[in-house]
């Protein structure tokens, strides 16, 4: 956890920023690769996925943080999973009820949030050790970092694969869509190039 801020406010700010950039779950920790690769063909499902993850992350972090003193060490992963699964199910039901199209587009990837390492990582690394406020801020930061990364990936891919953004045409008429970018290969290539870019910017060697 970052400690270079001043006082509580600085700590909150650091925690928030850590998730957004310094400890970005996708680019720096390489967590949550499954949704990163699977739902980034277009921005809309990526954004929906990101919101779901934020919701689950915040809820599970709250619950875990509240019961952190009651946890038995050898049963903690079980408790985390139980908590996460509950909120994922709720999110899934919500999507089905109010966003049926997105629910169909995301398919099995919403239930798969249960096994998203980011959430269990934050529960383990942050919520089970910290007070409520820090846990919530950490969840928001991590979730927002994840969402932004997903949207960035999806933005590039949707733009190139279909010439659209959020389903609306933005490219000039002469643009021919690169269908391959919408396929899994596009996900891998875009992610790889973005990782390379991020590593170049941060000067990380390997």
């Amino acid at each position, binding site marked *: 956890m970052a400690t270079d801020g001043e006082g509580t406010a600085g700590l909150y700010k650091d925690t928030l920023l850590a998730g957004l950039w310094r400890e970005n779950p996708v680019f720096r920790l390489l967590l949550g690769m499954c949704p990163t690769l699977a739902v980034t063909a277009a921005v809309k499902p990526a954004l929906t996925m990101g919101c779901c993850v934020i919701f689950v992350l915040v809820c599970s972090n709250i619950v875990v943080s509240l019961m952190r003193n009651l946890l038995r060490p050898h049963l903690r992963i079980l408790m985390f999973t139980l908590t996460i699964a509950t909120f994922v199910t*709720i999110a899934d039901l*919500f999507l*089905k009820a*109010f966003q*049926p199209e997105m629910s169909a587009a995301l398919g099995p990837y919403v239930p798969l949030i249960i096994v998203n390492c980011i959430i269990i990582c934050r529960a383990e690394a942050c919520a089970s050790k910290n007070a409520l406020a820090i846990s919530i801020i950490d969840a928001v930061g991590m979730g927002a970092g994840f969402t932004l990364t997903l949207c960035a990936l999806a933005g590039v891919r949707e733009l190139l694969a279909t010439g659209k953004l959020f389903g609306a045409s933005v490219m000039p008429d002469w643009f021919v869509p690169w269908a391959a970018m919408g*396929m899994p290969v596009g996900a891998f290539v875009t992610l790889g190039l973005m990782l390379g870019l991020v590593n170049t910017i941060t000067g990380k060697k390997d």
Partner: protein
Amino acid sequence: MDKVKYFFQQSWLLIVASFCFGLLIAVANAGWQGRILQNEEDKFNNLVVEMIPDANTSEVALENVEVESGKGKTRATSIRKALSADGQCVGWAFTCEGSGFADKIKLVLTVDAGFEKLKGYGVLSSNETPGFGDKIKDQFYRNQFVDAPTTELVLMKLGAPDVKDAEIVAISGATVSSEAVVTIVNTFLGQIKSHMQEKGQIGDGN
């Protein structure tokens, strides 16, 4: 006795949490279940209405119709009657499914009231290759099925897509997906037609 005590000491949180979370899911489910079912119905109806312009809504006519989908497997589907605003039967609609290039393809197939001509199909769910296989959702391909006879359809590599006959011109570059659609239609159409004739819902074509 000690063992039981130990067990509860260790796991009371788990048990309590399970109950709480179960309750939470139950509440969410109870609140949204109606909407979820309505959404599915709406999606189906929207596709039906899109294909049969006269139709206003649809209702279940026959339930659990068994269809042999090849290789000794059977699939159950329900046949729905498309109703116009004044309650007249203007066509029939049913879901059908089969394997496509990448995954299962689920279609809604509509026929006219006399079961003589196809009114078209709509894709409920598919996971075909973007840019190629998912062109089965495009009007170019779907229009070929509109007003096609309810006899065996044939897939052609080259031909005139505008003529309304049993010959369907394949999507170039996505022969497998095109073929899958034709196969699904052929499998379900014939069997359901004879099933309907048996039940006396429609005439025997004479």
